[in-house]
């Protein structure tokens, strides 16, 4: 029963957050760095060669470590570090040990950031499900960005540790977290939370109590909210929902739309290129699956 959700989050733990990471950095460092960060964010998100990002991003991980070392209690810097480490660990680290190390650091940074802004979060590591859910109630919109970062880093961590059953046990907490985030996210809501919710809610089939119809609504919200520009939402809709319910027509339609779409969309190019790679694999394996 291991690896219940191992590959499913890889592509959706995409690169949407990089802009937040780097603009987050920008608010903390000099104006010169602000420009650098904004330009870098744009350059990465619009890069069409994932290998180039894989090779180049580690330098910025070290840069963020140096910021954290200089301001270990600054939640904004910690959150920025958490996000970049989570992204790199989940998406680009093919080696399991590296993914584990990188996402462990991501979660540690995210946990420390949450602890700085919301005292009950300092006890989350040992909290029962009920205690965790109760502590979410105290979170307000001003904490939403940190909550999202903790959820994002946690998902990356759980994916990297999917052979550990403790990860399986934590999934309901992360689902509760993103549910609360959607309640308090307001206008600044990160759209990828919809895709994460869709993925979490399609881990369990309806015959075992899962609620894929609610998941479908989340996937569709993610697609609508980005005007269909974020192709990873469609890929996860196909992989999570259509495969779960053996709806081949929907599966193939979504993936063919992804393949036919222009991946060069501002802010989504890199994740779209990777989504198209995934879509091609899923389509090729369709006959075998269905």
């Amino acid at each position, binding site marked *: *029963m291991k690896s*219940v959700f191992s590959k499913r989050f890889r592509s959706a733990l995409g690169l949407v957050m990089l802009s937040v990471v780097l603009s987050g950095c920008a608010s903390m460092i000099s104006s010169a760095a602000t420009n650098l960060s904004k330009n870098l964010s744009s350059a990465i998100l619009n890069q069409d060669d994932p290998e180039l990002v894989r090779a180049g991003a580690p330098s910025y991980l070290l840069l963020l470590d140096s910021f954290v070392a200089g301001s270990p209690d600054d939640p904004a810097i910690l959150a920025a570090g958490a996000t970049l480490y989570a992204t790199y660990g989940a998406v680009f680290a093919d080696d399991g040990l590296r993914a584990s190390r990188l996402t462990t650091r991501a979660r540690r940074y995210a946990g420390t950031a949450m602890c700085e802004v919301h005292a009950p979060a300092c006890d989350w590591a*040992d909290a029962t*499900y009920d205690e965790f859910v109760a502590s979410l109630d105290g979170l307000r919109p001003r904490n939403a960005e940190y909550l999202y970062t903790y959820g994002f880093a946690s998902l990356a961590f759980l994916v990297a540790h999917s052979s550990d059953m*403790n990860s399986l*046990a934590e999934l309901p907490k992360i689902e509760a977290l993103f549910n609360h985030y959607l309640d308090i996210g307001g206008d600044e809501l990160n759209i990828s939370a919809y895709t994460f919710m869709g993925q979490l809610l399609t881990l*369990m089939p309806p*015959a*075992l109590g899962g609620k894929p119809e609610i998941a479908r609504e989340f996937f569709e919200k993610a697609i609508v909210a980005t005007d269909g520009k974020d192709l990873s939402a469609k890929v996860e809709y196909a992989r999570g929902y259509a495969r779960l319910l053996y709806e081949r027509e929907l599966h193939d339609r979504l993936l063919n739309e992804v393949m036919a779409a222009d991946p060069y969309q501002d802010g989504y190019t890199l994740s779209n290129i990777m989504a198209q790679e995934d879509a091609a694999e899923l389509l090729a394996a369709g006959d*075998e699956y269905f």
Partner: protein
Amino acid sequence: MELAMKKILLVALALIVSLPVHAAVTLKIATVSPENTQWMRDLRASAAEIKTRTDGRVVIKFYGGGVMGNDTKVLGRIRIGSLQGGAFTATTLASQYTDLNLYGLPLIFDSEEEVAYVRERLDAKLQQGLEDAGFVNFGFAGGGFAILMSNTPVDELADLKGKKVWVPEGDSISYASMEALSLSPVTLPLTDVLTGLQTGLLDIVAIPPIGALVLQWHTKIKYITELPLVYTIAFMAIEKRAFEKISPADQAIVREIMDATYRKFDVVNPKDNQAARDVLLNQGIKSMKFERDNYLAIRAVLAESNKALGAKGKFSADMYDEMVGYIAEFRSKQAADISPPPDVSAANK
């Protein structure tokens, strides 16, 4: 010469016509196991290997996540030929072969070691019985013991009295056993159990730890009682008529590969179950244990209930006696030692 050639051709033609024809066969198999689990990955890998080794003559397609409906529906689909088999638990096919109920009789076993001793002696007979009932199978994968999970501590018989306990649909043995323990059995589909625990419709469920984790029931319980309540098994069964459409040589390949897959499950499952039990404790769930006297008391109640179920034809008396005989044999071999209180956690190691 020409006549001779014609004769040869005619004989050859007659031979070809009389040979059994084994066209490519597709076996559609249903299971409730969710996609993206290791089980499903292993089953799909086995199917891929079978397809390769039979040069595409045998294709196995799996329909996971219970998408083909509940057990009754799956059996109905097998009868009409839209499915050829399924991955089942014992209860499901007990209607076709009652002795599948034997391993799952409540508190019939004290430990995994005891189960192993009995299974070594009885598995082959049960497998053959299932084949005789019309279902080709590839051995049993033990799923570990279902243990009690609750919102209030349970460590003696009195703690159970009047509590509402979940019983799976169609599981008449569990229903009768829970009644024998003065519990109030509530029959619900699997899909409604989590809500049942949340709303107070249920106080207690019994399931192996790995099941509780996958189904997320661990979010709604506070205690586990480490009592080896019900030993669970799972297996794949394919309708014999469908299987016999495969050539004998290809049947052997299917059996070889699927036997190995189920042997692997049988080895891995207890380890996973043990890991899952530890995870439940990591999540803040408390472990309860029955003291020896309390354990013997509850076992005595269930032993009587089990016998009564046998009298009602829930399993054959001969096989039950044989199983109980092996259990007694195992216990007598252990008799030199003073038996420690039953401990599922140790038993599963």
